[in-house]
């Protein structure tokens, strides 16, 4: 029993990480139908910028805030210089552009930062919490809490602000959005800024657990993408549920089968979701009536 509980806790810890990464996909996807494969690099930039500003003597809380600002600037630049010039291209072409951007950002990070692994101290320290013979670190709860806060903020933004609704409108019908006077280019730009900010926060919160380096983005984006697919891409709640489920699946597969198969779980999930429930668990149902 303690063994089961311990697997569950480590699953939730990893799952919370995936949930945070998966959440970053939602704003861009919702505003423009683009799956941003540079999302993992936003996560890397959040963590690595904080680490390096910290090494340069900047107090860590300030370094973390600056890291969010830097990552948002990179997100806006990605939109302005890579996505915007390809306006009107197919979603597949835009996805290819984000893959290119991801490779570029990884290369740039290798030069600007370094190739080593780095860690951040936990944002909330203290001893591991014991429950029924198993333990969980306070930092895991911070990551989980971060995911919940982001879900609530995203929900409030979409449901309670007119700009949030303009974002939904732009995604639902770009032409009609332009005809009511929405500058749809800026709305999509805003979605890149929000996704970048979520990615950076994710990187800052998870680095104490996962460590960070210039190339952590690739695997994280893959896991986050699998989680988002499982939950239903575009749904914030789905991202969190999908992330936690994927984390638990991985932990139990590693615990009861073999840790060699851990990473294969994500691929399996992608395959099964694509074949069986392409919309995911919480994917948006179409409300169109024709």
């Amino acid at each position, binding site marked *: 029993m303690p063994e089961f509980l311990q697997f569950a806790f480590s699953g939730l810890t990893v799952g919370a990480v995936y949930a945070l990464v998966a959440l970053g996909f939602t704003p861009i996807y919702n505003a423009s139908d683009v799956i941003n494969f540079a999302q993992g690099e936003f996560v890397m930039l959040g963590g690595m910028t904080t680490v390096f500003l910290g090494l340069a003597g900047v107090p860590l809380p300030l370094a973390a805030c600056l890291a969010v600002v830097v990552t948002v600037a990179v997100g806006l630049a990605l939109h302005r210089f890579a996505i915007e010039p390809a306006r009107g291209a197919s979603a597949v072409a835009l996805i290819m552009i984000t893959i290119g951007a991801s490779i570029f950002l990884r290369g740039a990070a290798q030069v600007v930062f370094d190739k080593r692994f780095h860690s951040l101290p936990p944002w909330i320290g203290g001893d591991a919490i014991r429950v029924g013979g198993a333990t969980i670190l306070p930092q895991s709860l911070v990551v989980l809490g971060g995911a919940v806060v982001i879900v609530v903020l995203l929900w409030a933004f979409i449901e309670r602000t007119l700009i949030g609704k303009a974002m939904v409108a732009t995604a639902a019908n770009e032409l009609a959005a332009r*005809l009511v006077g929405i500058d749809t280019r800026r709305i999509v730009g805003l979605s890149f800024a929000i996704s970048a900010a979520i990615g950076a926060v994710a990187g800052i919160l998870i680095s104490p657990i996962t460590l960070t380096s210039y190339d952590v983005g690739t695997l994280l984006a893959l896991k986050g993408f699998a989680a988002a697919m499982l939950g239903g891409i575009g749904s914030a709640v789905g991202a969190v549920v999908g992330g936690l489920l994927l984390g638990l699946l991985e932990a139990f597969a590693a615990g009861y089968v073999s840790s060699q198969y851990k990473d294969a779980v994500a691929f399996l999930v992608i395959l099964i979701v694509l074949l069986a429930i392409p919309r995911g668990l919480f994917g948006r149902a179409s409300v169109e009536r024709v």
Partner: protein
Amino acid sequence: MLSVEDVRSGYGRIEALHGVSINIAAGEIVTLLGANGAGKTTLIRAICGVQPISAGRIRFENRQLEDLPAHARVALGIAQVPEGRQVFAPLSVEDNLKLGAWTRRDANLVAELASIYELFPMLAANRHISAGMLSGGQQQMLAIGRALMAKPRLLLLDEPSMGLAPILVEQILDVVRGLKQAGLTVLLVEQNARAALAIADRGYVVETGRIATSGSAAQLLADDRVQAAYLGV
């Protein structure tokens, strides 16, 4: 109020408008008649800035529009009810209306919302329902209400009665007539040429990307060719 001069526009390398000129004076209802594929929608889209033009000039109240993006033209007072309604399906009726007033989002919208609900009571009853769930007629009313929320001075209507029951068509044309009385200028594209000419002051006949004829509504109603081609006489 609006003058379109020698506008050319197309899709890819195929030109759909071969130099079109029209004028609309303040307070008029002007209608565009023409067969399927004549270029009416293309012209309306060009006026709104969602369709690029390759030549010509478009002037609205002494402002050149050619270089203005679509959203800036809405702010100047041009609103369109697009062909096929194009409501924001996942959003509620009320959110659709609020977004209609996007260019005036600092204004107090309570009074405007109330006036739209007075014009279309069925929208009030469904204000919290997703627009995608409405019937075709209700969506059309929502699309008109949404355009009015922008407080336009020029309203462009692209086939507002398409696919609607005759009683709804009548109702929508009544609304258009009422808008003119309230001082709005209207450019109306309508399949039902007889109904359109009944409420219009003037009209243009568009044929394969050119203006074929124009004149007052009475002149067009009496025109032999218009009668044969569009009035089924």
